[in-house]
């Protein structure tokens, strides 16, 4: 695989009925391409948490999967309102999710920490105009 394969999904804010579908498709694509199980598992965690972050915390956005010969890259880009304190958001257990979302089992403050633990590279930029999360998983390890 020398060319980059790309697949994008629109993610709607607060659409819990579709939540997880993009990540499920990403997992199926990676399995179809014969990726190592550890890469599939890590990409599944990262894409799911990114997708749920867009659903719960943003006004909507896109989740994009890019694959080349050495890396799986997941870009989660939303249109705001941004993360006020990225450092705090990276702390396990810190959550700004509303109570009714927490009752559904979301918003445990583990999303970004889970992504950090499963990514080889994690880059987050955020402003009131939106958040851009770039996750890189090396296929070779």
């Amino acid at each position, binding site marked *: 695989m020398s060319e980059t394969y790309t697949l994008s999904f629109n993610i709607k804010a607060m659409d819990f009925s579709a939540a*997880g579908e993009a*990540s499920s498709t990403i997992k199926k694509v990676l399995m179809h391409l014969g990726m190592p199980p550890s890469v599939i598992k890590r990409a599944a965690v990262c894409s799911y948490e990114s997708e749920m972050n867009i659903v719960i915390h943003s006004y909507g956005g896109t989740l994009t999967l890019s694959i080349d010969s050495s890396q799986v890259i997941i870009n989660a880009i939303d249109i705001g309102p941004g993360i006020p304190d990225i450092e705090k958001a990276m702390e396990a257990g810190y959550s700004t999710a509303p109570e009714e979302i927490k009752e*559904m089992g979301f918003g445990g403050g583990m*999303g970004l920490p889970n992504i950090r633990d499963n990514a080889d590279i994690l880059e987050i930029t955020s402003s009131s105009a939106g958040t851009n999360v770039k996750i890189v998983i090396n296929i070779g390890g």
Partner: protein
Amino acid sequence: MKVSEIANTLNLKLLSGAGGLDKEVNDVYICDLLSFVMSHASENSLWITVQTHINIVAIAVLIGISCIVIPESISVDEDTLLRAEKESIPIFTTPYTAYQLACRLRELGI
């Protein structure tokens, strides 16, 4: 042990996802915090949770959970059952509490 064998032995009631009854179960995971399940549950687990909304099916697909069991006869959302049917993730209900069910699963050697 297969999902169907566990269900028959413990008299679990199948609500949806019959296409996955032949899957193997090697482990049990009990948790209702979805991100925690996502990062800690292992493939081929039987998952016990009181969450019943559609997202539990996505989690099961992503991790490779073999089946979901809802304890204490909690009713399950219709759209959850439709998605489970489509993805062949068996969802069961039981009057047991999560603890009682875990004890019975232990007796089965899981």
